[in-house]
């Protein structure tokens, strides 16, 4: 660009800028006060509004926050305070105010309660099963769906596999009973063919497998949605270039698709590990009687049966609180690890 051209560009820019008055000069008299406050390069006031003015300006926005804040106060923050009964010998007829304080006695009792350890073991065992068997399924499904050329097939298949996510656990268990239960389709067919029936639904030894299969049936399709979004974000020209260089379908998957999904896989994996103490609640509560507490008791059902059913309110609250605190710490740690791996992590994303 020559000197004259540059100058003419500058002139042009100046001409364009001209109609906009410089900051703080050409204001209406009533705005005079504001013009003294700090302004940004466009002359728009920045954080220059006084506290009272902001209150008046944001009055309606603040009103809009009220329903949500009331909800949080009633059904989140006050119940959190209710966790103090974990340090009490809570008696319903005395209430929180009059029950005796017992310090950490409930946690000590919990430590020496074998049922608690069974529940903890079952929880971790189920979480590991879920990690190994459940986690790869949505990824595989997403790869298959992504490879489908026909948009029609894609669309109906996606709609179909998302559906079970919207069925309640009660329905899912009822459907499983109808297919795999003692009087269900599979066992009737087995009996007709002269075989013994297999107690899929009631065998405690195979329960972790059954529970994981139920989870896969219900949620694997839905979990695919996030992988599909990441797949769609991969630049198509990368595939084209690789194909032109002679890379076959498997090579393209290994060198383009999987690296493209790396960050989301790492993120989800870390979050799942952080969330290891939550394996689900309704699913295990519903099958608690059929399979027995030896296999189907998880931390959440332990809290329910010890606290609400058994009347050991403080013990149940102690188990719930311990689980909540450890769970929160694990999620927090997992997020830190995600940051270490150079991934954005969940909190930064959601706040930002």
């Amino acid at each position: 660009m020559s000197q004259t051209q540059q100058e003419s560009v500058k002139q042009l820019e100046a001409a364009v800028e001209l109609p906009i008055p410089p900051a703080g000069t050409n204001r209406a008299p009533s705005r005079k006060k504001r013009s003294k406050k700090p302004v940004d390069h466009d002359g728009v006031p920045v954080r220059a509004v006084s506290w009272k003015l902001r209150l008046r300006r944001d009055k309606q926005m603040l009103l809009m926050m009220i329903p949500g804040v009331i909800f949080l106060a009633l059904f989140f923050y006050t119940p959190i305070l209710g966790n103090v009964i974990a340090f009490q010998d809570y008696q319903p007829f005395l209430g929180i105010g009059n029950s005796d304080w017992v310090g950490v006695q409930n946690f000590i009792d919990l430590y020496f309660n074998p049922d608690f350890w069974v529940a903890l073991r079952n929880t971790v065992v189920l979480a590991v099963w879920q990690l190994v068997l459940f986690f790869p399924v949505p990824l595989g499904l997403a790869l298959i769906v992504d490879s489908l050329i026909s948009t029609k097939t894609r669309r109906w298949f996606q709609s179909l596999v998302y559906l079970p996510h919207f069925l309640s656990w009660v329905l899912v268990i009822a459907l499983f009973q109808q297919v795999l239960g003692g009087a269900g389709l599979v066992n009737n067919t087995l009996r007709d063919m002269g075989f013994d029936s297999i107690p899929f639904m009631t065998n405690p030894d195979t329960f972790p497998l059954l529970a994981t299969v139920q989870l896969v049936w219900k949620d694997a399709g839905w979990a695919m949605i996030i992988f599909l979004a990441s797949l769609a974000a991969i630049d198509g020209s990368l595939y084209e270039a690789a194909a032109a260089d002679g890379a076959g379908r498997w090579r393209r998957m290994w060198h383009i698709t999987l690296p493209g999904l790396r960050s989301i896989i790492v993120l989800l994996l870390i979050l799942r590990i952080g969330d290891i103490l939550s394996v689900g609640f309704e699913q295990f509560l519903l099958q608690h009687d059929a399979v027995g507490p030896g296999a189907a008791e998880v931390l959440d059902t332990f809290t329910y049966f010890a606290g609400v059913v058994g009347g050991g309110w403080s013990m149940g609250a102690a188990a719930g609180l311990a689980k909540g605190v450890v769970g929160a710490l694990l999620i927090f740690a997992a997020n830190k690890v995600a940051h270490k791996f150079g991934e954005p992590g969940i909190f930064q994303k959601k706040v930002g």
Partner: protein
Amino acid sequence: MATTIHERRTAKRQAKGLTFNPSRPVWKEPASPFYNAIKAVIIGGITLSIVLPILLVVSTSIADDEQLTAAGGFGLWPTHPTHAAYQAIFSGEFMFRALGVSAFITAVGTFLALFITITMAYATSRPVMFGRPVLLLVLFTLLFAPGLIPMFLMVKELGLLNTVWSLILPGTFAAFNFVVMRSFFMNIPVELIEAARIDGASDFMILRKIVLPLSKAVIAVVGLFYAVSFWNAFFNAMLYINDQTLYPVQLVLRNYVVQGGSMAEAIGVTSAPPPQSMQMAIVVIALLPILIVYPFLQKHFNKGVITGAIKG
């Protein structure tokens, strides 16, 4: 001239006279019958695993006594369809009440939940006073849960035990749905809102006249999430409700199908159709609303409403 494997393959297939799908990217290998067969088997298997149980349940609910006895308690295809099971279920008030409770919880709950979520999400999506601290208050709920027993005590303290409100109020706000809603609002061009404000619109008016009409997709999706969570909830009913007349459908389903309680006794019919049919009829009743609403709303899922939020 050096040719790539893929070009050679293409040439080979063209020589054989195989046709190509025009929507197939040119750089992709021609469709391989082998991989296509594998994919077809997987997709077919998954489809079957979802469709078959639902078909089984529907057929059993309309199967007659003879067929069920012959087959041992289920029917894959009804030979003599009958609606006796449905007639029996709806002969007493019991099921009508349960349906009424579920419908009430779902309708009122979804409305309240959308109201709270939309106002909260919009207010925190703009740089306003207290926006940041309130946002943090919400996001903290993602990290920690108050726990089952303190929740129960709170509901009891509020005097909600044994009322439908115990099934509605605790579920009227979910942080995940809030995040979905808020990130959608944040993507609305700020110029639109600024322009409306300059024209003298208040924040309420901007929300109602500008933001909401632009947010139909996200409202549909979040509304579906809330409606499904209200319709599907059974545990809070188990926890908070003693009165049988306030049982929602899912709790009826749990008591008489999963736990195998005697349905005929609860309804008070004497000459009952086969219990399997009646059980499956309840399953169908619980399933039907979801199957009806789902097709209208699922089209929004792929528009990035949800994934947009998850990805930040």
